[in-house]
């Protein structure tokens, strides 16, 4: 499914507003960066509450499709700047990780 379709369905706040057309092949949920490095797959959308600049490097190195930051946490300015440079999409939602993961599961797995 396309990233912009997911953005619309989940009413996500788009913090980078540039990268829309990417395909989302799956989802990974974790706040441990080495766990994402070890277990996320390329194309995954990553749900986390981490907001510091290293999340951009993780997403870039793993070829993730986008990052969703939950609980309306505000990413550091450095994170946004780096994400623009590296062309990594970052979204934000007031929903908790549980809520957003549940909705995504329904959208991608269809029940």
């Amino acid at each position, binding site marked *: 499914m396309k990233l912009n379709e997911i953005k619309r369905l989940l009413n996500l706040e788009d913090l980078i507003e540039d990268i829309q057309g990417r395909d989302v092949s799956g989802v990974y949920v974790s706040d441990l960066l*080495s766990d994402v*490095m070890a277990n996320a797959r390329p194309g995954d959308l990553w749900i986390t509450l981490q907001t510091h600049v290293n999340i951009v490097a993780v997403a870039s190195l*793993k070829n993730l499709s986008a990052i969703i930051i939950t609980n309306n946490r505000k990413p550091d300015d450095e994170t946004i700047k780096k994400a623009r440079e590296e062309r990594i999409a970052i979204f934000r939602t007031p929903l908790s990780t549980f809520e957003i993961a549940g909705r995504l599961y329904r959208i991608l797995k269809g029940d």
Partner: protein
Amino acid sequence: MKLSETIEGSFSILGGDFARGGAASCELKSILEKLGLPEDIIQRATISAFEAEMNVIIHAIAGTMLYSVTPERIKIVVTDMGPGIPDIELAMQEGYSTAPEWVKEMGWGAGMGLPNMKKNADVFNIDSVVGEGTTVELIIYTQKRGES
């Protein structure tokens, strides 16, 4: 770029420089992509390079990442001036970490770095002297055995 000879280079890494965390590994990744290596090989190389780079940033004063790529393999050597590891066997255990609490709050220091390197590299060597520093050597073969 074409891979008929050895391509090599190095990056310096500054301890505590979280703002540039991953900069060396990202650059290495784009070099490997330009060489046209398969995605899964690039993934394994960059995952292990990134973990080694972050260990320098988390634990050491400074370090360097040397890489060399031949048609057969990618070799990455990360050397640091740092505290060293007193018990390597213990440090290799998944979940064991000596990272400070604030680093753990960033989602690092889960005790997965060294195991991730070992899992992703075909050859993993580590050498450490307490009070001096640590060197990890990572080799990822670019072709399956029997292919040429």
